[in-house]
């Protein structure tokens, strides 16, 4: 264990999933020919005015509730003033001291199943900017470029800014935090949360300190991470870089560093920026927002199960492994299917084995999602019940499952129609055993001469004679009894 502890805070920008942009009627879609998805409002033309998107506000309230934030009765939009070419009005409509939600925390879990909490400094609603492309330089960077092109298609897209407290202590925790954030927002349907498309963007503030110290070290901000994997790599690399600096007797400089995924290193972008005075003030184009407590309660009542609650249910109540639980939580349709099966069958272990085992294998082979397959949850629950009651054995169950996948319907009906019920009557099985032993005297003689592993051959033949229906355990027992 290193003598240093990393202290990490994550700042995320999440594009909200709405039909229209935050303050105008332009569609909120990804991509498109540059500057085709724009209007006077999102271009900041003289005289244009913003009108807030009620849906985005509702998304924020739901996200706030999901992170256990307070929802104040009043909120407002403020202007953050600074000049930037891809920001049409040269101010960003944002929320400063009265955001829609206050506080809150993200509950996440680690690979060993530990549930942890990271408090949120703030969540607020703002508008996205346009996107600059620098041309005329060899590497697409602004240095050396001769001109820049701006695409305003993204300008005005509703953006949730979510800043964590510096309470994460390593790359694993940081990524687990991000995964929990992502899962929660997906479960709420408020964002696509895709790092590749930029609907989730994050920066990490990283510092180190001697283990046990309460003071914060000098932090650096790492940008340009475009996947969870690159977040993990970038954080590990930065922690190592800072430790190496300290161990060489040097100091960490406060700066912004850009992560170069291809080279696996971060590069200094700019050192400690001159303190910006954003001159925040309430946006006079937008009236203060009031949120009715009744509306908050209504939204709270509609809150779906949150991923950490689902995790606790799966690993605690159902006894699933961390991997199994996570696998299901990350496949919401499959989890929904699984939950229905468990609700009917009441046997989580069997449901897990079928859903994550045979069914998922079939789904893979046939390229059809489990939840969309012909196997109704009710029928799978029936199959589990048949196995549990020892009416069929697992071999028959597997065969039935394949037939159900192909549309055979209720397994109970098949079992009854085709007389597939397991034979557990000792007298009937004993008769089959006697028949097989009589037919293979040489094998019986080998066994008795000490070659005990030939018993398997005899058991197999009994099973075959029963057309697979005999209770395998009973067959084993009777074969050994007769031979012994």
């Amino acid at each position, binding site marked *: 264990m290193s003598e240093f502890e990393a202290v990490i805070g994550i700042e995320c920008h999440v594009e909200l999933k709405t039909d229209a942009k935050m303050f105008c009627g332009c569609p909120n879609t990804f991509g498109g020919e540059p500057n085709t998805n724009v209007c*006077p409002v999102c*271009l*900041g*033309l*003289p*005289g*244009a*005015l*913003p*009108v*807030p998107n009620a849906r985005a506000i509702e998304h924020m309230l739901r996200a706030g509730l999901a992170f256990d934030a307070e929802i104040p009765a009043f909120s407002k939009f403020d*202007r953050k*003033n600074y*000049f930037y*070419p891809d920001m*049409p*009005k*040269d*101010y960003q409509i944002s929320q400063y001291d009265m955001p829609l939600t206050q506080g809150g925390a993200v509950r996440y879990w680690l690979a060993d199943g530990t549930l942890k909490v990271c408090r949120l400094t703030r969540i607020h609603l703002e508008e996205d900017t346009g996107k600059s492309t620098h041309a005329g330089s060899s590497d697409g960077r602004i240095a050396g470029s001769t001109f*820049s092109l*701006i695409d305003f298609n993204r300008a005005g897209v509703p953006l949730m800014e979510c800043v964590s407290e510096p309470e994460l202590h390593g790359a694993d925790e940081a990524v687990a935090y991000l995964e929990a954030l992502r899962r929660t927002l997906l479960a709420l349907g408020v964002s696509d949360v895709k790092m590749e498309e930029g609907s989730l963007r994050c920066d990490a503030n990283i510092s180190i300190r001697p283990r046990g110290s309460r003071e914060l070290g000098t932090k650096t901000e790492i940008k340009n991470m475009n996947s969870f994997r690159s977040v993990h790599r970038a954080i590990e690399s930065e922690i190592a870089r800072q430790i190496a600096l300290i161990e060489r007797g040097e100091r960490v400089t406060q700066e912004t560093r850009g992560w170069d995924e291809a080279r696996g290193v971060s590069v200094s972008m700019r050192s400690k920026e001159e303190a910006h*005075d954003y*001159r*925040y*003030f309430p946006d*006079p*184009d*937008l*009236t203060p927002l009031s949120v009715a407590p009744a509306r908050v309660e209504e939204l709270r009542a509609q809150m779906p199960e949150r991923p950490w609650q689902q995790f606790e249910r799966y690993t605690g109540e159902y006894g699933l492994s961390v991997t199994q639980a996570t696998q299901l939580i990350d496949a919401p349709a499959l989890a929904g299917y699984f939950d229905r099966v468990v609700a009917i069958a009441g046997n989580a272990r069997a449901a897990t084995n079928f859903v994550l085992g045979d069914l998922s294998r079939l789904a893979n082979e046939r390229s059809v999602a489990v939840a969309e397959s012909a196997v109704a949850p009710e029928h799978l629950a029936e199959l589990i019940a048949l196995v549990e009651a020892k009416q069929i054995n697992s071999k028959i169950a597997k065969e039935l499952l394949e037939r159900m996948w192909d549309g055979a319907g209720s397994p109970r009906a098949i079992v009854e129609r085709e007389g597939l019920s397991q034979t557990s009557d000792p007298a009937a099985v004993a008769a089959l055993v006697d028949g097989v032993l009589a037919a293979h005297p040489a094998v019986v003689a080998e066994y008795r001469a000490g070659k005990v592993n030939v018993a398997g051959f005899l058991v197999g033949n009994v099973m075959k004679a029963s057309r697979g229906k005999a209770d395998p355990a009973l067959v084993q027992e009777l074969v050994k009894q007769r031979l012994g």
Partner: protein
Amino acid sequence: MSDAAARSATAIAADVQAGRVSAREITEKALARVAAVEPRVGAYLTVLDAAARAAADRVDACIRAGERLPLAGVPLAIKDNMALAGSRTTAASKILADWVAPYTATAVARLLAAGAIPIGKANLDEFAMGSSCENSALGTTRNPYDLERVPGGSSGGSAAAVAAGEATIALGSDTGGSIREPAAFCNVVGFKPTYGRVSRYGLIAFASSLDQIGPLAHTVADAALVYDAIAGGDPMDATSLDRPVEPASARLRDDLRGCKIGIVRQFDTQTLGDDVDAVYRRAYRDLEALGAELVEVTLPTADYGLATYYLIAPAECSSNLARFDGVRYGLRVDADDVREMYARTRAAGFGPEVKRRILIGTYALSSGYYDAYYVRAQKARTLIARDFERAFQSCDLIAAPAASCPAFRFNAKSDPYSMYLMDYYTIPMSLAGLPALSVPCGWVTPDGSTRPMPLGLQLCGPLFSEPLLLGAAHAYESATGHARAHRPALDEAVDHV
């Protein structure tokens, strides 16, 4: 009909509706009048000949098709800080000198839909910052009653266009008095509705929490007609009010019986000089003669109006005008990097008054000063609004001067503060968001001049009292007829209704 544009909007619309004259004929006459007097008046930055004719032909087609248009064929001047699709929209600034608006302001669109004909885009103080129109970077507008004098501002072009018969009605915008003061200077009626009554969508923002569009016209009845057409909520403006609008045209009255009118103790007109004082004293007596009961009211915080306004308005403008950066539209002065391009563009594009206000506002919002300036100003604003609320517990309307003097000569107010003082009587109402208007109330002949110049009586009511306010102003106007006492100092006589 000698001067189509000088007749009342009501009369023109009735004639066009009845087919007695076509909108196209009215429009041609208005354009001819513009051609005749515009070289001397300079009310317009852009004359919309083609757009006006096209609009007139559309109106005539609608009338033939049996449509009813309340402003059919009425010539309209549009202050050039309002967007009209396809027209140059400059805010009288070099930074927007060549900008063509791709969309139309809601208030403008509503007037065009009501049949009004856009004759031209009227001059103003740059970005509506000023009280004389002298801050226009793109042209000089002269007062039609004395071409040596300013038309007032910032809606000086709108007021002058109506006064000179170059339009029958005009749209102006009022932030601290920018409709009322030029209306007073140019012998026309100017009306600022309650904040939020008229959509600001398409109005190039100066100070968003104060800006309000309103009409300028020869008569209160015409102003009411325009107000009725433009008022009402707009889904494109989140600060517009979505409450029903009672048509003001239906509430015009001929007396003031039962109406209590407050005279503000703090607004002592004696300080304005004997002749101006006499006009206002006479005006108050005339109100009484019409049946109004005069009561004294106090606005103890009114004196803080100017200081409050000159923090809030510049603060908002410093942010509103940030977008004029040379990146997307308007003037760009190139440089080696983007920061330098911003600096050169804004240095070349903005005039001195605009720069002064951007600097004041940036300072007022800066960290460390925000609480001392912006937050305190907002608190003062609340106190001023409360003063009015209290005053309106003992009266229905308040009467006051619209400006502290008649129109002055060009370059007479060389220091900014004496110019700011012009709005002393109009700013408190703006800060409180109240509806207020200026109606001609008499004439004085300034020292060293032989030409009488008009004064305006300001009437102000509680929030949403537009019908009461316009109704009362109509009674005063009908009984006194001050506007008709003198004619503009242009060669041609203007035939007033």
